Protein backbone atom coordinates (compact mmCIF):
# COMPACT_ATOMS: atom_id res chain seq x y z
CA UNK A 1 0.00 0.00 0.00
CA UNK A 2 1.19 3.47 -0.81
CA UNK A 3 1.24 6.00 2.00
CA UNK A 4 -0.83 8.95 0.68
CA UNK A 5 -0.33 12.48 1.88
CA UNK A 6 -3.29 13.63 4.01
CA UNK A 7 -4.22 16.37 1.53
CA UNK A 8 -4.50 13.81 -1.25
CA UNK A 9 -6.87 11.76 0.85
CA UNK A 10 -8.94 14.84 1.70
CA UNK A 11 -9.17 15.69 -1.94
CA UNK A 12 -10.26 12.18 -2.87
CA UNK A 13 -12.93 12.17 -0.18
CA UNK A 14 -14.14 15.57 -1.30
CA UNK A 15 -14.47 14.38 -4.88
CA UNK A 16 -16.39 11.32 -3.71
CA UNK A 17 -18.69 13.47 -1.61
CA UNK A 18 -19.41 15.83 -4.49
CA UNK A 19 -20.29 12.90 -6.72
CA UNK A 20 -22.44 11.27 -4.05
CA UNK A 21 -24.25 14.44 -3.03
CA UNK A 22 -25.14 15.47 -6.59
CA UNK A 23 -26.32 11.93 -7.21
CA UNK A 24 -28.40 11.99 -4.06
CA UNK A 25 -29.90 15.33 -5.02
CA UNK A 26 -30.98 13.87 -8.34
CA UNK A 27 -32.44 10.79 -6.72
CA UNK A 28 -34.17 12.90 -4.08
CA UNK A 29 -35.73 14.93 -6.91
CA UNK A 30 -36.83 11.77 -8.67
CA UNK A 31 -38.43 10.34 -5.56
CA UNK A 32 -40.31 13.56 -4.89
CA UNK A 33 -41.41 13.52 -8.51
CA UNK A 34 -42.62 9.94 -8.22
CA UNK A 35 -44.77 10.92 -5.26
CA UNK A 36 -46.19 13.94 -7.03
CA UNK A 37 -46.80 11.94 -10.21
CA UNK A 38 -48.65 9.30 -8.20
CA UNK A 39 -50.83 11.93 -6.54
CA UNK A 40 -51.50 13.56 -9.85
CA UNK A 41 -52.43 10.28 -11.52
CA UNK A 42 -54.72 9.30 -8.68
CA UNK A 43 -56.55 12.62 -8.90
CA UNK A 44 -56.73 12.97 -12.62
CA UNK A 45 -60.18 13.44 -14.13
CA UNK A 46 -61.95 10.42 -15.59
CA UNK A 47 -60.65 9.14 -18.88
CA UNK A 48 -63.77 8.75 -20.92
CA UNK A 49 -64.62 7.23 -24.24
CA UNK A 50 -64.10 9.76 -26.98
CA UNK A 51 -67.81 9.84 -27.82
CA UNK A 52 -68.49 10.98 -24.28
CA UNK A 53 -65.71 13.58 -24.47
CA UNK A 54 -67.38 14.88 -27.59
CA UNK A 55 -70.77 15.12 -25.90
CA UNK A 56 -69.27 16.94 -22.97
CA UNK A 57 -66.81 19.31 -24.57
CA UNK A 58 -67.61 19.80 -28.24
CA UNK A 59 -70.01 22.72 -27.72
CA UNK A 60 -67.54 24.59 -25.55
CA UNK A 61 -64.28 23.70 -27.28
CA UNK A 62 -62.46 26.77 -28.63
CA UNK A 63 -61.19 26.63 -32.23
CA UNK A 64 -57.71 25.16 -32.67
CA UNK A 65 -55.23 25.61 -35.50
CA UNK A 66 -53.05 22.56 -35.99
CA UNK A 67 -49.67 23.77 -37.26
CA UNK A 68 -47.85 21.11 -39.22
CA UNK A 69 -44.42 22.13 -40.51
CA UNK A 70 -43.19 20.16 -43.50
CA UNK A 71 -39.72 20.06 -45.03
CA UNK A 72 -39.16 17.59 -47.86
CA UNK A 73 -42.02 15.29 -46.88
CA UNK A 74 -43.23 14.43 -50.36
CA UNK A 75 -43.64 10.73 -49.54
CA UNK A 76 -45.76 11.10 -46.43
CA UNK A 77 -47.36 14.52 -46.70
CA UNK A 78 -50.72 13.49 -48.17
CA UNK A 79 -51.21 10.74 -45.66
CA UNK A 80 -50.24 13.03 -42.77
CA UNK A 81 -52.62 15.75 -43.88
CA UNK A 82 -55.49 13.30 -44.33
CA UNK A 83 -54.82 11.95 -40.90
CA UNK A 84 -54.85 15.46 -39.40
CA UNK A 85 -58.07 16.34 -41.21
CA UNK A 86 -59.78 13.30 -39.70
CA UNK A 87 -58.97 14.31 -36.10
CA UNK A 88 -62.03 14.52 -33.90
CA UNK A 89 -62.50 18.15 -33.07
CA UNK A 90 -65.42 20.48 -33.63
CA UNK A 91 -63.62 23.56 -34.92
CA UNK A 92 -60.18 23.04 -36.32
CA UNK A 93 -58.04 24.45 -39.09
CA UNK A 94 -55.13 22.44 -40.39
CA UNK A 95 -52.27 24.73 -41.39
CA UNK A 96 -49.49 22.99 -43.28
CA UNK A 97 -46.32 25.05 -43.55
CA UNK A 98 -44.08 24.08 -46.43
CA UNK A 99 -40.72 25.33 -45.21
CA UNK A 100 -39.03 25.82 -48.57
CA UNK A 101 -38.91 22.11 -49.39
CA UNK A 102 -36.54 21.25 -52.21
CA UNK A 103 -38.68 18.29 -53.27
CA UNK A 104 -42.24 18.23 -54.60
CA UNK A 105 -44.01 18.54 -51.24
CA UNK A 106 -45.99 21.61 -52.29
CA UNK A 107 -46.88 20.28 -55.73
CA UNK A 108 -48.08 17.07 -54.19
CA UNK A 109 -50.37 18.98 -51.84
CA UNK A 110 -51.70 21.21 -54.58
CA UNK A 111 -52.42 18.18 -56.70
CA UNK A 112 -54.01 16.01 -54.12
CA UNK A 113 -56.23 18.57 -52.43
CA UNK A 114 -56.99 20.71 -55.50
CA UNK A 115 -55.42 23.73 -53.81
CA UNK A 116 -55.73 27.20 -55.23
CA UNK A 117 -53.75 30.32 -54.34
CA UNK A 118 -55.67 32.55 -51.95
CA UNK A 119 -55.27 35.89 -50.24
CA UNK A 120 -55.63 36.12 -46.54
CA UNK A 121 -55.12 38.97 -44.15
CA UNK A 122 -52.60 37.79 -41.61
CA UNK A 123 -50.71 39.07 -38.63
CA UNK A 124 -47.04 40.02 -38.89
CA UNK A 125 -46.22 40.03 -35.20
CA UNK A 126 -43.61 37.29 -35.01
CA UNK A 127 -40.54 37.12 -37.21
CA UNK A 128 -40.05 34.50 -39.94
CA UNK A 129 -38.71 33.99 -43.47
CA UNK A 130 -40.96 35.48 -46.18
CA UNK A 131 -44.19 33.73 -47.14
CA UNK A 132 -44.34 33.00 -50.86
CA UNK A 133 -47.98 32.14 -51.06
CA UNK A 134 -51.07 30.77 -49.36
CA UNK A 135 -53.14 27.94 -50.76
CA UNK A 136 -56.57 26.67 -49.83
CA UNK A 137 -58.93 24.04 -51.08
CA UNK A 138 -62.50 24.90 -52.07
CA UNK A 139 -63.38 21.32 -51.19
CA UNK A 140 -61.87 21.26 -47.71
CA UNK A 141 -62.50 24.64 -46.09
CA UNK A 142 -60.43 23.93 -42.99
CA UNK A 143 -57.17 23.24 -44.80
CA UNK A 144 -54.62 25.99 -45.44
CA UNK A 145 -51.14 25.57 -46.88
CA UNK A 146 -48.45 28.18 -46.35
CA UNK A 147 -45.57 28.14 -48.78
CA UNK A 148 -42.56 29.97 -47.40
CA UNK A 149 -38.83 30.24 -47.76
CA UNK A 150 -36.73 27.84 -45.75
CA UNK A 151 -35.99 28.86 -42.21
CA UNK A 152 -36.16 25.79 -40.00
CA UNK A 153 -38.85 24.45 -37.73
CA UNK A 154 -39.20 27.43 -35.37
CA UNK A 155 -39.43 29.73 -38.32
CA UNK A 156 -42.10 27.61 -40.00
CA UNK A 157 -44.16 27.47 -36.81
CA UNK A 158 -43.87 31.23 -36.42
CA UNK A 159 -45.35 31.71 -39.88
CA UNK A 160 -48.16 29.36 -38.91
CA UNK A 161 -48.82 31.30 -35.71
CA UNK A 162 -49.07 34.55 -37.65
CA UNK A 163 -51.44 33.19 -40.24
CA UNK A 164 -53.67 31.08 -37.95
CA UNK A 165 -56.75 32.75 -36.54
CA UNK A 166 -57.84 30.32 -33.86
CA UNK A 167 -57.32 31.34 -30.23
CA UNK A 168 -55.39 28.11 -29.62
CA UNK A 169 -52.78 26.46 -31.75
CA UNK A 170 -51.35 22.98 -31.63
CA UNK A 171 -47.78 22.60 -32.78
CA UNK A 172 -46.64 19.20 -33.97
CA UNK A 173 -43.62 17.65 -35.67
CA UNK A 174 -43.76 16.48 -39.25
CA UNK A 175 -43.60 12.88 -38.03
CA UNK A 176 -46.00 13.15 -35.08
CA UNK A 177 -48.79 10.59 -35.15
CA UNK A 178 -51.75 11.96 -33.23
CA UNK A 179 -54.45 9.99 -31.47
CA UNK A 180 -57.87 10.69 -33.05
CA UNK A 181 -59.11 12.41 -29.92
CA UNK A 182 -55.82 14.08 -28.97
CA UNK A 183 -57.15 17.62 -29.33
CA UNK A 184 -60.39 16.84 -27.52
CA UNK A 185 -58.40 15.47 -24.60
CA UNK A 186 -55.74 18.13 -24.53
CA UNK A 187 -58.20 21.02 -24.70
CA UNK A 188 -59.89 20.03 -21.45
CA UNK A 189 -57.72 22.23 -19.18
CA UNK A 190 -58.47 25.21 -21.44
CA UNK A 191 -62.21 24.60 -20.99
CA UNK A 192 -62.08 23.93 -17.29
CA UNK A 193 -59.84 26.83 -16.33
CA UNK A 194 -60.26 29.19 -19.27
CA UNK A 195 -58.95 32.22 -17.44
CA UNK A 196 -55.69 30.62 -16.32
CA UNK A 197 -54.46 27.88 -18.63
CA UNK A 198 -52.02 29.13 -21.26
CA UNK A 199 -50.43 25.92 -22.51
CA UNK A 200 -50.95 22.16 -22.31
CA UNK A 201 -48.57 19.31 -23.03
CA UNK A 202 -49.39 15.64 -23.28
CA UNK A 203 -47.64 12.31 -23.08
CA UNK A 204 -45.63 11.34 -26.12
CA UNK A 205 -45.21 7.62 -26.68
CA UNK A 206 -42.91 5.71 -28.99
CA UNK A 207 -44.47 4.02 -31.98
CA UNK A 208 -41.52 1.72 -32.68
CA UNK A 209 -42.81 -1.82 -33.02
CA UNK A 210 -46.48 -0.83 -33.05
CA UNK A 211 -48.67 -1.25 -36.11
CA UNK A 212 -49.17 1.98 -37.98
CA UNK A 213 -51.71 2.37 -40.73
CA UNK A 214 -52.38 5.54 -42.69
CA UNK A 215 -51.05 7.81 -39.99
CA UNK A 216 -52.66 6.09 -37.00
CA UNK A 217 -51.32 3.67 -34.43
CA UNK A 218 -53.67 0.74 -34.78
CA UNK A 219 -52.09 -1.71 -32.35
CA UNK A 220 -49.63 -1.11 -29.52
CA UNK A 221 -46.73 -3.51 -29.49
CA UNK A 222 -43.22 -3.45 -28.12
CA UNK A 223 -40.29 -3.15 -30.51
CA UNK A 224 -37.64 -5.85 -30.79
CA UNK A 225 -34.80 -3.35 -30.99
CA UNK A 226 -33.11 -2.90 -27.61
CA UNK A 227 -32.37 0.80 -28.13
CA UNK A 228 -36.01 1.45 -28.89
CA UNK A 229 -37.08 -0.51 -25.81
CA UNK A 230 -34.78 1.48 -23.57
CA UNK A 231 -36.21 4.66 -24.98
CA UNK A 232 -39.74 3.48 -24.15
CA UNK A 233 -38.71 3.26 -20.50
CA UNK A 234 -36.95 6.62 -20.79
CA UNK A 235 -40.05 8.27 -22.26
CA UNK A 236 -42.22 6.85 -19.50
CA UNK A 237 -39.81 8.31 -16.98
CA UNK A 238 -39.71 11.66 -18.70
CA UNK A 239 -43.44 12.06 -19.22
CA UNK A 240 -45.21 9.94 -16.65
CA UNK A 241 -42.86 10.88 -13.84
CA UNK A 242 -40.95 14.11 -14.46
CA UNK A 243 -43.36 16.19 -16.53
CA UNK A 244 -46.46 15.06 -14.74
CA UNK A 245 -44.89 15.82 -11.36
CA UNK A 246 -43.51 19.18 -12.47
CA UNK A 247 -46.89 20.18 -13.86
CA UNK A 248 -48.48 19.17 -10.57
CA UNK A 249 -46.01 21.53 -8.89
CA UNK A 250 -46.85 24.11 -11.58
CA UNK A 251 -43.19 24.18 -12.62
CA UNK A 252 -43.29 22.43 -15.99
CA UNK A 253 -40.44 23.73 -18.14
CA UNK A 254 -40.87 21.69 -21.33
CA UNK A 255 -43.72 20.93 -23.68
CA UNK A 256 -42.51 18.60 -26.36
CA UNK A 257 -42.28 19.90 -29.90
CA UNK A 258 -44.09 16.74 -30.99
CA UNK A 259 -47.37 17.92 -29.47
CA UNK A 260 -48.25 21.07 -27.56
CA UNK A 261 -51.33 23.24 -27.27
CA UNK A 262 -50.84 26.96 -26.70
CA UNK A 263 -52.84 30.14 -26.37
CA UNK A 264 -51.88 31.90 -29.57
CA UNK A 265 -52.13 35.41 -28.20
CA UNK A 266 -49.60 34.81 -25.44
CA UNK A 267 -47.15 33.14 -27.76
CA UNK A 268 -47.37 36.23 -29.97
CA UNK A 269 -46.71 38.39 -26.93
CA UNK A 270 -43.46 36.56 -26.21
CA UNK A 271 -42.41 36.77 -29.85
CA UNK A 272 -43.14 33.21 -30.89
CA UNK A 273 -40.44 30.58 -31.19
CA UNK A 274 -36.86 31.80 -30.97
CA UNK A 275 -34.52 31.46 -33.89
CA UNK A 276 -31.07 29.99 -33.66
CA UNK A 277 -31.71 27.59 -30.80
CA UNK A 278 -32.11 23.83 -30.98
CA UNK A 279 -34.35 23.67 -27.93
CA UNK A 280 -37.04 26.01 -29.19
CA UNK A 281 -39.88 23.99 -27.62
CA UNK A 282 -38.36 24.25 -24.16
CA UNK A 283 -37.37 27.86 -24.64
CA UNK A 284 -40.93 28.86 -25.57
CA UNK A 285 -42.31 27.45 -22.33
CA UNK A 286 -39.64 29.27 -20.32
CA UNK A 287 -40.48 32.50 -22.14
CA UNK A 288 -44.15 32.03 -21.29
CA UNK A 289 -43.33 31.49 -17.62
CA UNK A 290 -41.12 34.57 -17.59
CA UNK A 291 -43.75 36.71 -19.31
CA UNK A 292 -46.56 35.68 -16.99
CA UNK A 293 -44.43 36.07 -13.88
CA UNK A 294 -43.27 39.50 -14.97
CA UNK A 295 -46.86 40.54 -15.66
CA UNK A 296 -47.79 39.05 -12.29
CA UNK A 297 -50.79 37.32 -13.78
CA UNK A 298 -52.09 34.01 -12.46
CA UNK A 299 -51.56 31.26 -15.02
CA UNK A 300 -51.24 27.52 -15.41
CA UNK A 301 -49.23 25.33 -17.75
CA UNK A 302 -50.76 21.88 -17.64
CA UNK A 303 -49.79 18.40 -18.65
CA UNK A 304 -52.18 15.53 -19.31
CA UNK A 305 -50.92 12.02 -18.65
CA UNK A 306 -52.99 10.40 -21.40
CA UNK A 307 -50.97 9.61 -24.49
CA UNK A 308 -51.89 11.99 -27.27
CA UNK A 309 -49.11 11.57 -29.75
CA UNK A 310 -46.77 8.91 -31.06
CA UNK A 311 -43.39 9.35 -32.57
CA UNK A 312 -40.71 7.09 -34.02
CA UNK A 313 -37.50 6.90 -31.95
CA UNK A 314 -34.12 6.40 -33.56
CA UNK A 315 -33.12 2.76 -33.51
CA UNK A 316 -29.44 3.25 -34.21
CA UNK A 317 -26.68 4.47 -31.95
CA UNK A 318 -25.24 7.20 -34.13
CA UNK A 319 -28.54 8.95 -34.73
CA UNK A 320 -29.64 8.55 -31.14
CA UNK A 321 -26.33 9.92 -29.93
CA UNK A 322 -26.70 12.94 -32.17
CA UNK A 323 -30.27 13.51 -30.96
CA UNK A 324 -29.27 13.37 -27.31
CA UNK A 325 -26.31 15.70 -27.81
CA UNK A 326 -28.69 18.12 -29.51
CA UNK A 327 -31.25 17.90 -26.69
CA UNK A 328 -28.51 18.58 -24.17
CA UNK A 329 -27.33 21.57 -26.17
CA UNK A 330 -30.92 22.79 -26.27
CA UNK A 331 -31.37 22.68 -22.50
CA UNK A 332 -28.01 24.35 -21.93
CA UNK A 333 -28.81 27.12 -24.40
CA UNK A 334 -32.14 27.76 -22.73
CA UNK A 335 -30.61 27.59 -19.27
CA UNK A 336 -27.86 30.06 -20.09
CA UNK A 337 -30.17 32.41 -21.98
CA UNK A 338 -32.52 32.62 -18.99
CA UNK A 339 -29.98 32.09 -16.21
CA UNK A 340 -31.17 35.17 -14.36
CA UNK A 341 -34.32 33.21 -13.49
CA UNK A 342 -32.38 30.60 -11.49
CA UNK A 343 -33.20 30.90 -7.78
CA UNK A 344 -34.63 34.35 -8.47
CA UNK A 345 -37.55 34.89 -6.10
CA UNK A 346 -39.25 37.02 -8.73
CA UNK A 347 -39.89 33.87 -10.75
CA UNK A 348 -41.12 31.88 -7.77
CA UNK A 349 -41.31 28.15 -8.18
CA UNK A 350 -40.07 28.31 -11.76
CA UNK A 351 -36.82 29.82 -10.55
CA UNK A 352 -36.44 27.31 -7.74
CA UNK A 353 -38.10 24.07 -8.82
CA UNK A 354 -38.02 24.37 -12.60
CA UNK A 355 -34.57 25.85 -12.98
CA UNK A 356 -33.25 23.93 -9.96
CA UNK A 357 -34.25 20.73 -11.72
CA UNK A 358 -32.53 21.78 -14.94
CA UNK A 359 -29.40 22.71 -12.96
CA UNK A 360 -29.18 19.43 -11.09
CA UNK A 361 -30.37 17.04 -13.79
CA UNK A 362 -29.20 18.65 -17.03
CA UNK A 363 -26.36 21.03 -16.25
CA UNK A 364 -24.37 19.56 -13.37
CA UNK A 365 -25.68 15.99 -13.35
CA UNK A 366 -24.02 14.53 -16.46
CA UNK A 367 -20.64 16.20 -15.88
CA UNK A 368 -20.32 15.05 -12.32
CA UNK A 369 -21.69 11.61 -13.03
CA UNK A 370 -19.23 11.00 -15.85
CA UNK A 371 -16.40 12.31 -13.68
CA UNK A 372 -17.56 9.86 -11.05
CA UNK A 373 -17.43 6.91 -13.48
CA UNK A 374 -13.71 7.44 -13.82
CA UNK A 375 -12.63 8.92 -10.54
CA UNK A 376 -14.45 6.96 -7.86
CA UNK A 377 -13.39 3.45 -8.98
CA UNK A 378 -9.91 4.75 -9.69
CA UNK A 379 -9.50 6.42 -6.31
CA UNK A 380 -10.87 3.33 -4.60
CA UNK A 381 -8.53 0.99 -6.44
CA UNK A 382 -5.49 2.94 -5.40
CA UNK A 383 -6.65 2.87 -1.81
CA UNK A 384 -7.66 6.51 -1.48
CA UNK A 385 -11.32 5.73 -0.79
CA UNK A 386 -12.77 3.13 1.51
CA UNK A 387 -15.28 0.54 0.33
CA UNK A 388 -18.17 2.55 1.83
CA UNK A 389 -17.62 5.28 -0.71
CA UNK A 390 -17.58 2.82 -3.55
CA UNK A 391 -20.79 1.19 -2.39
CA UNK A 392 -22.53 4.52 -1.94
CA UNK A 393 -21.39 5.44 -5.42
CA UNK A 394 -22.71 2.16 -6.83
CA UNK A 395 -26.02 2.73 -5.04
CA UNK A 396 -26.36 6.10 -6.72
CA UNK A 397 -25.41 5.00 -10.20
CA UNK A 398 -27.11 1.62 -10.30
CA UNK A 399 -29.53 0.51 -7.63
CA UNK A 400 -31.41 3.78 -7.16
CA UNK A 401 -31.62 4.00 -10.93
CA UNK A 402 -33.30 0.61 -11.04
CA UNK A 403 -35.71 1.69 -8.35
CA UNK A 404 -36.75 4.88 -10.16
CA UNK A 405 -37.27 3.13 -13.52
CA UNK A 406 -39.22 0.23 -12.07
CA UNK A 407 -41.30 2.55 -9.91
CA UNK A 408 -42.32 4.49 -13.02
CA UNK A 409 -43.38 1.23 -14.65
CA UNK A 410 -45.43 0.45 -11.56
CA UNK A 411 -47.15 3.80 -11.85
CA UNK A 412 -47.92 3.10 -15.48
CA UNK A 413 -49.33 -0.31 -14.76
CA UNK A 414 -51.41 0.72 -11.76
CA UNK A 415 -52.85 3.86 -13.28
CA UNK A 416 -52.82 3.66 -17.07
CA UNK A 417 -52.25 0.09 -18.25
CA UNK A 418 -51.44 0.92 -21.81
CA UNK A 419 -49.28 -2.10 -22.53
CA UNK A 420 -51.64 -4.79 -23.76
CA UNK A 421 -49.77 -7.97 -22.87
CA UNK A 422 -48.45 -9.14 -19.47
CA UNK A 423 -45.26 -10.25 -21.17
CA UNK A 424 -44.70 -6.64 -22.26
CA UNK A 425 -44.39 -5.77 -18.60
CA UNK A 426 -41.77 -8.41 -18.03
CA UNK A 427 -39.73 -7.21 -20.98
CA UNK A 428 -39.93 -3.59 -19.82
CA UNK A 429 -38.96 -4.49 -16.27
CA UNK A 430 -35.89 -6.30 -17.51
CA UNK A 431 -35.05 -3.30 -19.69
CA UNK A 432 -35.53 -0.96 -16.72
CA UNK A 433 -32.88 -2.93 -14.85
CA UNK A 434 -30.46 -3.47 -17.70
CA UNK A 435 -30.47 0.13 -18.92
CA UNK A 436 -28.55 1.15 -15.80
CA UNK A 437 -25.58 -0.91 -16.90
CA UNK A 438 -24.20 0.58 -20.07
CA UNK A 439 -26.99 2.59 -21.64
CA UNK A 440 -27.20 5.13 -18.85
CA UNK A 441 -23.46 5.71 -19.03
CA UNK A 442 -23.58 6.00 -22.79
CA UNK A 443 -26.36 8.54 -22.67
CA UNK A 444 -24.35 10.62 -20.20
CA UNK A 445 -21.41 10.62 -22.61
CA UNK A 446 -23.76 11.86 -25.32
CA UNK A 447 -24.84 14.63 -23.01
CA UNK A 448 -21.22 15.59 -22.44
CA UNK A 449 -20.81 15.75 -26.17
CA UNK A 450 -23.77 18.11 -26.24
CA UNK A 451 -22.06 20.23 -23.60
CA UNK A 452 -18.90 20.32 -25.71
CA UNK A 453 -20.84 21.37 -28.79
CA UNK A 454 -22.57 24.03 -26.73
CA UNK A 455 -19.27 25.42 -25.45
CA UNK A 456 -17.81 25.47 -28.95
CA UNK A 457 -20.83 27.33 -30.26
CA UNK A 458 -20.60 29.82 -27.40
CA UNK A 459 -17.01 30.48 -28.56
CA UNK A 460 -18.34 31.16 -32.03
CA UNK A 461 -16.78 28.06 -33.57
CA UNK A 462 -19.96 26.20 -34.24
CA UNK A 463 -21.50 26.39 -37.65
CA UNK A 464 -25.24 26.47 -38.34
CA UNK A 465 -26.06 23.99 -41.04
CA UNK A 466 -29.51 23.07 -39.85
CA UNK A 467 -32.10 23.39 -42.54
CA UNK A 468 -34.59 20.61 -42.12
CA UNK A 469 -36.14 19.60 -38.83
CA UNK A 470 -33.90 16.58 -38.17
CA UNK A 471 -36.49 14.03 -37.26
CA UNK A 472 -33.92 11.83 -35.54
Amino acid at each position, binding site marked *: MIEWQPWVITMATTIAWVVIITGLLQIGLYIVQLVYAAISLANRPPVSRSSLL*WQRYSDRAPPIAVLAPAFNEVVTIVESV*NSLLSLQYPQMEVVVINDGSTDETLERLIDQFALQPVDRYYDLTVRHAPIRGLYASPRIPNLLVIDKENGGKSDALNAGINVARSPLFCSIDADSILESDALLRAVRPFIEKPDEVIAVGGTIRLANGSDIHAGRVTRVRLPRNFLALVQIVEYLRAFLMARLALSRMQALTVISGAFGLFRRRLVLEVGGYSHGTVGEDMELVIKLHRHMREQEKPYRIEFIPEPVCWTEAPGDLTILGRQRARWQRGSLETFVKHKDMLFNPRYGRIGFLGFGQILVVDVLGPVIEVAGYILVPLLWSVGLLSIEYLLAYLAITFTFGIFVSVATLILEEVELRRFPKPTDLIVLTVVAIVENFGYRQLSNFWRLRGLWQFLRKQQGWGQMTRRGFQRA
Partner: protein
Amino acid sequence: MSTPVRVLVCDDDPLLLELLEFRLAAKGFDVQAARDGGEAMQLLESKPPSAVVLDAMMPFIDGYEVLRRIRENPTLKALPVIMLTARKQEKDIVGALELGASDFLAKPFIPEELVARLIRLTGPAQ
Protein backbone atom coordinates in the same frame (compact mmCIF):
# COMPACT_ATOMS: atom_id res chain seq x y z
CA MET B 1 -89.62 -14.09 -50.62
CA SER B 2 -87.27 -11.45 -51.85
CA THR B 3 -83.67 -11.04 -50.71
CA PRO B 4 -83.15 -8.76 -47.74
CA VAL B 5 -82.02 -5.19 -48.32
CA ARG B 6 -78.31 -4.85 -47.60
CA VAL B 7 -77.21 -1.88 -45.49
CA LEU B 8 -73.61 -0.85 -44.92
CA VAL B 9 -73.09 0.64 -41.47
CA CYS B 10 -69.89 2.56 -41.00
CA ASP B 11 -68.73 3.83 -37.62
CA ASP B 12 -65.54 3.65 -35.58
CA ASP B 13 -67.39 2.88 -32.35
CA PRO B 14 -67.69 -0.92 -32.05
CA LEU B 15 -70.54 -0.66 -29.58
CA LEU B 16 -72.60 1.48 -31.92
CA LEU B 17 -71.99 -1.04 -34.70
CA GLU B 18 -73.16 -3.85 -32.44
CA LEU B 19 -76.27 -1.90 -31.53
CA LEU B 20 -77.11 -1.11 -35.14
CA GLU B 21 -76.44 -4.63 -36.31
CA PHE B 22 -78.77 -5.91 -33.63
CA ARG B 23 -81.57 -3.43 -34.33
CA LEU B 24 -81.38 -3.51 -38.11
CA ALA B 25 -81.08 -7.30 -38.32
CA ALA B 26 -84.20 -7.53 -36.14
CA LYS B 27 -86.03 -5.47 -38.78
CA GLY B 28 -84.91 -7.84 -41.50
CA PHE B 29 -81.99 -5.88 -42.97
CA ASP B 30 -78.81 -7.60 -44.04
CA VAL B 31 -76.17 -5.55 -42.17
CA GLN B 32 -72.54 -5.11 -43.13
CA ALA B 33 -70.26 -3.27 -40.76
CA ALA B 34 -67.15 -1.20 -41.45
CA ARG B 35 -64.91 0.28 -38.79
CA ASP B 36 -63.34 3.06 -40.82
CA GLY B 37 -63.62 4.91 -44.10
CA GLY B 38 -61.08 2.73 -45.86
CA GLU B 39 -62.93 -0.45 -45.03
CA ALA B 40 -66.19 1.17 -46.09
CA MET B 41 -64.77 2.10 -49.51
CA GLN B 42 -63.60 -1.47 -50.04
CA LEU B 43 -66.99 -2.93 -49.15
CA LEU B 44 -68.76 -0.35 -51.28
CA GLU B 45 -66.76 -1.35 -54.30
CA SER B 46 -66.74 -5.12 -53.77
CA LYS B 47 -70.43 -5.58 -53.03
CA PRO B 48 -72.46 -2.39 -53.24
CA PRO B 49 -75.22 -2.21 -50.59
CA SER B 50 -78.66 -0.67 -51.02
CA ALA B 51 -78.03 2.01 -48.42
CA VAL B 52 -75.29 3.37 -46.19
CA VAL B 53 -75.39 4.63 -42.62
CA LEU B 54 -72.28 6.78 -42.24
CA ASP B 55 -70.48 8.35 -39.30
CA ALA B 56 -68.61 11.59 -39.96
CA MET B 57 -65.59 11.27 -37.67
CA MET B 58 -63.62 8.18 -38.50
CA PRO B 59 -59.92 7.49 -38.78
CA PHE B 60 -58.04 7.41 -42.11
CA ILE B 61 -60.84 8.55 -44.41
CA ASP B 62 -63.58 10.49 -42.67
CA GLY B 63 -67.28 10.21 -43.45
CA TYR B 64 -67.45 13.37 -45.53
CA GLU B 65 -64.70 12.08 -47.78
CA VAL B 66 -66.43 8.70 -48.13
CA LEU B 67 -69.63 10.51 -49.06
CA ARG B 68 -67.82 12.66 -51.61
CA ARG B 69 -66.27 9.58 -53.21
CA ILE B 70 -69.66 7.86 -53.34
CA ARG B 71 -71.20 10.83 -55.11
CA GLU B 72 -68.30 11.02 -57.57
CA ASN B 73 -68.51 7.34 -58.42
CA PRO B 74 -70.86 6.76 -61.39
CA THR B 75 -72.13 3.39 -60.12
CA LEU B 76 -72.69 4.55 -56.54
CA LYS B 77 -73.95 8.05 -57.27
CA ALA B 78 -77.60 7.35 -56.46
CA LEU B 79 -76.93 5.32 -53.31
CA PRO B 80 -78.99 6.48 -50.31
CA VAL B 81 -76.63 7.68 -47.56
CA ILE B 82 -77.74 8.61 -44.06
CA MET B 83 -75.21 10.54 -42.01
CA LEU B 84 -75.32 9.50 -38.36
CA THR B 85 -72.96 11.74 -36.47
CA ALA B 86 -72.23 13.62 -33.28
CA ARG B 87 -71.25 16.63 -35.37
CA LYS B 88 -74.58 18.39 -35.24
CA GLN B 89 -73.81 22.08 -35.52
CA GLU B 90 -75.69 23.93 -38.21
CA LYS B 91 -72.68 24.06 -40.54
CA ASP B 92 -72.14 20.32 -40.17
CA ILE B 93 -75.72 19.44 -41.10
CA VAL B 94 -75.77 21.84 -44.03
CA GLY B 95 -72.32 20.67 -45.10
CA ALA B 96 -73.36 17.03 -45.10
CA LEU B 97 -76.52 17.70 -47.07
CA GLU B 98 -74.62 19.84 -49.57
CA LEU B 99 -72.16 17.02 -50.10
CA GLY B 100 -75.09 14.85 -51.07
CA ALA B 101 -76.24 13.08 -47.93
CA SER B 102 -79.77 11.75 -48.35
CA ASP B 103 -80.58 12.31 -44.72
CA PHE B 104 -79.01 13.43 -41.46
CA LEU B 105 -79.38 12.08 -37.94
CA ALA B 106 -77.58 13.42 -34.88
CA LYS B 107 -76.12 11.26 -32.14
CA PRO B 108 -77.43 10.29 -29.66
CA PHE B 109 -80.14 9.00 -31.95
CA ILE B 110 -83.43 7.12 -31.84
CA PRO B 111 -82.95 3.71 -33.47
CA GLU B 112 -86.65 3.54 -34.44
CA GLU B 113 -86.25 6.80 -36.31
CA LEU B 114 -83.21 5.52 -38.17
CA VAL B 115 -85.09 2.41 -39.24
CA ALA B 116 -88.05 4.49 -40.42
CA ARG B 117 -85.81 6.77 -42.43
CA LEU B 118 -83.97 3.82 -43.94
CA ILE B 119 -87.22 2.21 -45.04
CA ARG B 120 -88.34 5.50 -46.56
CA LEU B 121 -85.17 5.48 -48.68
CA THR B 122 -84.91 1.81 -49.58
CA GLY B 123 -88.41 0.43 -49.24
CA PRO B 124 -89.22 -2.36 -46.78
CA ALA B 125 -86.32 -4.47 -45.59
CA GLN B 126 -87.50 -7.62 -47.35
